[in-house]
């Protein structure tokens, strides 16, 4: 697999589809989201082999995301523990995954994001017990895009992301992978808030995500 690492962001860039190499081992079905069948097998049959393939592919990515986004307050052992928690949720919640509403990639990201939010709250010693999922749902939209439409939107995102200028990739990366708010990104880069906002909006527009304001 051709792979390189963007020096600025550490983002792993490869020209092959991430899933291509694994796809052939899995299934030749025409389902566009190749991981959905594995999640279904976990849900319906508690299939350990299917879960192990998910584990192999996603664990190193979840771990990488959590190490970046949990901030300086987290050490490697904590990131490892949260990574395990995310995978346990993938096993436990497999039945609630709906391939018409989200790709497995997005579903697993939202589980990792929510587990991270929960960890940060626990660390803040918040006295109020709140179920994070009452606020941040796991990629569930009551008006889902139709399956193929969703896949197409993800293709657009994927392709456009490869063409973004470095300054836009940088702010997107800090927002989504390091989990920093617009304000934190602005402060860290010494930029006005409006500049951070417009860079993110420009990048989103290229991915055909058109938010009015």
């Amino acid at each position, binding site marked *: 697999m051709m792979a390189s690492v963007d020096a600025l962001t550490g983002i792993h860039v490869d020209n092959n589809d991430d899933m291509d190499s694994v796809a052939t081992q899995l299934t030749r079905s025409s389902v566009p989201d190749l991981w959905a069948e594995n999640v279904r097998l976990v849900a319906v049959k508690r299939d350990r082999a299917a879960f192990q393939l998910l584990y192999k592919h996603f664990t190193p990515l979840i771990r990488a995301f959590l190490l970046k986004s949990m901030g300086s307050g987290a050490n490697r052992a904590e990131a490892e523990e949260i990574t395990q928690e995310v995978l346990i949720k993938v096993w436990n*919640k497999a039945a609630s995954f709906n391939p018409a509403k989200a790709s497995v990639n997005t579903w697993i990201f939202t589980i990792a994001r929510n587990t991270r939010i929960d960890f940060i709250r626990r660390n803040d010693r918040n006295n109020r017990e709140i179920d994070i999922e009452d606020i941040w749902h796991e990629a569930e939209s009551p008006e889902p895009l139709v399956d193929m439409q969703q896949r197409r939107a993800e293709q657009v995102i994927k392709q456009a992301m490869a063409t973004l200028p470095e300054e836009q990739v940088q702010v997107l990366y800090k927002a989504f992978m390091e989990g920093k708010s617009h304000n934190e990104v602005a402060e860290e880069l010494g930029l006005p808030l409006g500049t951070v906002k417009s860079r993110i909006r420009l990048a989103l527009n290229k991915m055909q995500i058109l938010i009015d304001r």
Partner: protein
Amino acid sequence: MVSFHPDSKFLTDFAAGSLAMSEAVCVAAHLEFCGKCRAHVQQLSDVAAQMMARLEPIADEHDGFESLMQRIDSAEPAAPQESAVRAGRPALAASGIPRVVEKLAGGNLQDLNWVKLGGSLRIAPMDVGCKRRQTAIYDIKAGRPMPEHEHRGEEITVLLKGSFSDADGKYVRGDFVVRHAGERHQPTATLDTDCICLVSLEQPVKPSSLWYRLMEPFVQYRLSGFSH
């Protein structure tokens, strides 16, 4: 029709999980009214997921799969999954109030600790475990004006029931309205029903009239008294 939405900053920070709790609750409440913003949050989560897929993977130090499965096997069988149940439900609760607000209020809004402020307004502080901002439900009597007030910090209002208007326009259920520090306004609840809003305040609102200014220490005392 909802016509005031969270901007790209709110939606991005929400999808990335970096929005403070009080603001996140406001965005989540708006999402229950607004399919368009729900779709945006979904797309933004797709962006994040694509970025995660492109991170340089960090491999296991040793293969942890077997120990993970042991942990799963020895745990209690998972409880019925609320998210599975949730997926089939309509966005709003039967009462027409967003589920996220009812849940955080512990059920019925009427059971919150309401503080009456004059004849037209009562406020119920809500603890959402957020240190940076105050969160509250405002209940404004039909057709009565709120005291004119000035904002020392950013204020987010999500209209849950009824409608209100101020010099800038009319707001209806689901609208997500942001006011910045230094703006003055005097909202008036309109129509024949009471108006209920979810409010997130960066700093306590400073009322302009002398009477409310005298009230203010009391209000803040009551607000802070209920925040735990």
